[in-house]
């Protein structure tokens, strides 16, 4: 039986989060009102000339650096010529011959370990407008998107499975969001993934005929489309047929891809140097100054958390996946010096709460110092875990200092041995059966008593002290073999 291997390369378009478009001063913000952010230039009127938005170059360089690319000190724009109503000038200004960034890589975590995926190039280009097809056969054009800066990230054909492609896309999205170059919202189209896929018999050196799959609106679609396409190609080859070089369109509802255009239809884009724009010349100083704006990146942070703070892989990865979360975590640790506990809180309560409230960390306005304080209070045994969680809930809503919350909600813990003894005596009295079980050798019942004690004290009992007293009382009962009578 022949064994096949799937070869995947991705082309990822990412809209840059600049405030204005790539070649004019129109707003690049998303708006629902059609043709709101337009001017003579981005509507392709004659006599207008493109003026490069340097911010877009800076953002693209940021992504290039984050992907360990070589940033080209000379790059330039080309025209890609074709006709379509969403393309106002009859050509798209893109980078064809001399892209801005080249030869980078991105390490992803696969179940088989770290895998390095090559980045062939990143180029800067303008987006096209959007067509809205009406039911009566007419189409409307919205040029709001026309001219918004895009980068296209082209990977080497290094991916081998749907799963790898999905991990790559997700990690890439996290990375780009880290650089703040884009918000990477797939549903708004600010990140779009195209797949190039071919299959070959394992062990053969040559690539098979590849197809391109477009219209992938989520990472899930990416994975599904790859699965579908690789099975389709393998089926073709096994039955002795050929794969056609074509572009296919993924239909998420049907779960299949359909041919969009074949090789003969693929137009000759007649690329040539954009004569209206000067080349982009970057000095080493400029590149270095962009590098300085980059934060410490996910992999670097993850490795640091594991190395210096001994976090388990999963927690380190989860925290490092978001810049805001990682920054928050690090500030918490800075305050409490308890990385393990902090990671426990951040991956637990903090994320749970954000999920619950459907917020992102930036919106929550949480003060990492307060979380740090809370963690210290627990560590110093001034709070039990369950009380701390309650305080955290309040803190999340009120943004108040935990000390202040505690002050207004009564004593911190019951540390009074006499008071605790009374509570414990009561608990034992009320649970004669459990006491009998314990004395009969069921040591697990101890936990049950502790739970009851916490209930009685609203969770404020000092755990260590309660444990000590409970042990003493139970030992006394055992030694005297004299269960407490009811009443």
């Amino acid at each position, binding site marked *: 039986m022949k064994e096949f291997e799937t070869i995947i390369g991705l082309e990822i378009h990412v809209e840059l989060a600049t405030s204005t478009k790539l070649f004019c001063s129109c707003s690049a913000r998303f708006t629902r009102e059609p043709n709101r952010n337009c001017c*003579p230039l981005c509507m392709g009127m004659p*006599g207008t*000339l493109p*003026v*490069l938005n340097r911010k877009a170059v800076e953002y693209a360089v940021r992504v290039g650096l984050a992907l360990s690319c070589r940033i080209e000190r000379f790059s330039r724009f080309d025209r890609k010529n074709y006709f379509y109503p969403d393309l*106002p000038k*009859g050509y798209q200004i893109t980078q064809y011959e001399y892209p801005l960034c080249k030869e980078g890589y991105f390490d992803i975590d696969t179940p088989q370990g770290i895998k390095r995926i090559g980045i062939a190039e990143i180029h800067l280009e303008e987006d096209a407008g959007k067509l809205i097809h009406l039911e009566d056969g007419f189409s409307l054009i919205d040029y709001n998107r026309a001219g918004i800066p895009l980068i296209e990230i082209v990977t080497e054909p290094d991916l081998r499975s749907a799963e790898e492609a999905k991990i790559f896309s997700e990690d890439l999205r996290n990375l780009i969001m880290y650089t703040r170059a884009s918000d990477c919202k797939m549903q708004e189209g600010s990140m779009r993934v195209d797949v190039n896929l071919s299959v070959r018999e394992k062990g053969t050196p040559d690539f098979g005929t590849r197809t391109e799959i477009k219209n992938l609106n989520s990472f899930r679609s990416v994975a599904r489309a790859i699965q579908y396409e690789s099975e389709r190609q393998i089926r073709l080859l096994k039955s002795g047929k050929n794969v056609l070089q074509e572009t296919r369109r993924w239909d998420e509802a049907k779960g299949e891809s359909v041919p969009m255009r074949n090789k003969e239809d693929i137009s*000759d884009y*007649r690329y040539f140097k954009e004569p209206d724009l*000067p080349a982009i010349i970057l000095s080493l100083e400029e590149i270095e100054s962009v590098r300085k704006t980059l934060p410490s990146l996910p992999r670097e942070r993850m490795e640091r958390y594991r190395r210096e703070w001994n976090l388990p892989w999963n927690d380190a990865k989860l925290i490092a996946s978001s810049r805001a979360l990682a920054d928050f975590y690090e500030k918490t640790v800075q305050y409490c010096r308890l990385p393990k506990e902090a990671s426990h809180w951040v991956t637990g309560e903090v994320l749970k709460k954000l999920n619950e409230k459907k917020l992102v960390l930036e919106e929550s306005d949480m003060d990492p110092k307060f979380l740090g304080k809370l963690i210290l209070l627990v560590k110093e045994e001034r709070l039990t875990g369950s009380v701390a969680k309650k305080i955290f809930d309040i803190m999340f809503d009120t943004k108040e200092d935990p000390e202040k919350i505690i002050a207004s909600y009564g004593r911190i813990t019951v540390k009074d041995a006499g008071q605790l003894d009374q509570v414990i005596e009561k608990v034992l009295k009320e649970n004669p059966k459990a006491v009998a079980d314990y004395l009969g050798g069921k040591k697990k019942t101890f936990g049950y008593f502790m739970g009851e004690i916490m209930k009685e004290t609203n969770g404020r009992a000092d755990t260590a002290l309660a444990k000590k007293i409970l042990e003493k009382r139970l030992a006394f009962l055992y030694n005297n073999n004299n269960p407490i009578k009811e009443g």
Partner: protein
Amino acid sequence: MTLSNMSVKQIGDKLKKKEISAVELTKVYLGRIKKEDPKKECFVTLWEAKALRQAGTFQKKQDKNGLLSFLAGIPCGLQDHICTENLSTEAGSVILKNFIPPYNATVVEKILDRLGIPLGKLRMSEFGMNPDPIQCGAAQSVSKGWTVYSLGSDVFGSVSIASVFWNIAGLRPTHGLVSRYGLIASSSLDQIGIFANRVEDCAAVLSEIAGQDPRDPLSASFTVPDYTTYLRKGVRGLKIGFLAGAEDDAKVFEKQGAEVKEVTLSLLSYIRPIYDILFSAEASSALGRYDGIKYGYRSSHGNNLSELYTRSRGEAFGSEAKKYVLAGTHILSSEQREIYNKALKGRYLIAKESEDLFTHFDVLLMKGNPKEDDLCLLPALTGMPALTVPKGSRSENGFYGIRLMANRFQEGLLFQAGHLYRSETGGAT
């Protein structure tokens, strides 16, 4: 009133002395255009209201501030591919039928800001692609005395050809000296040019319309001098290289103390094919925006998208545009790619040869020619400026003055030499 042969400066002086009012002057010009060009063969659109408004503003400002600019109060014309806000701009093509730009070209803004008086838009061949001087309304309008100066564009050497044909002065400035924003160009080789009766008028107008423009990324950061200060510098000590055919003209300069020497250009025969290739390639792309979708002409016979494109473009483009679009599409196709790359290389070599020439000479002198030749394309390929100077008096039949070229941003030298030539050959100064 005989204003038709007066210079920018002479009219300016009259306005300053209030021998004539700007409104009066504008009315005289408009009246004459209406009378002498009733079929709109030269002025395709008049900007009458705007012109009179500008003249009115000029008078108010004049009383307050005195004269501000060479261009203030001076009637001028604009070729119809220079965009004018809220005024039809069709660039000589049916495809831009009824196109009314919502913006002014930078040169128009400059003229308006300086209280110049744009009288209207001038006829041109489709996108200026045909350098037939008869079709050049910008040169014609100046020659007829309907404008004091007109702005046109240089496509296929049209500034040089038309100014010689109409016996006026014509300047193609250095690439990047005058903003191209708002010029409906078919290629980056196209350049806004100045037509005027006199060299000194070209110098005055250039001093006002040149300068870096944030809207044109290829406009150069260059401190624009007052070019009129070069006019009377003479040519003593200038090194002038001349091409065969301009021997007699060279003598005019030699007599005034210039060092003259005959030179040859080895790559001359490559100029036209290279220009043709580069122009066609760019035009095929630049004209892609005219698709019948957003503005301009739309065929009523398009039943689907592809038909709408082919019909609109097929019906509206003239033969010149179609020729260059087809040629350019072919040239840029992946199979023919070598042609385009070779042309780029050739352009580089030609520019290099010209630059080398200007390390030995200040000015290059050529005979004027009212017809297409290869040399009239040299400024476009090298980005260098060229000035056409009519002979002061047309004494000998078929003798049409001279063309001068200088290194980039050396317009001053052109004015120096051009002005001297004009006065030495008996022209009014």
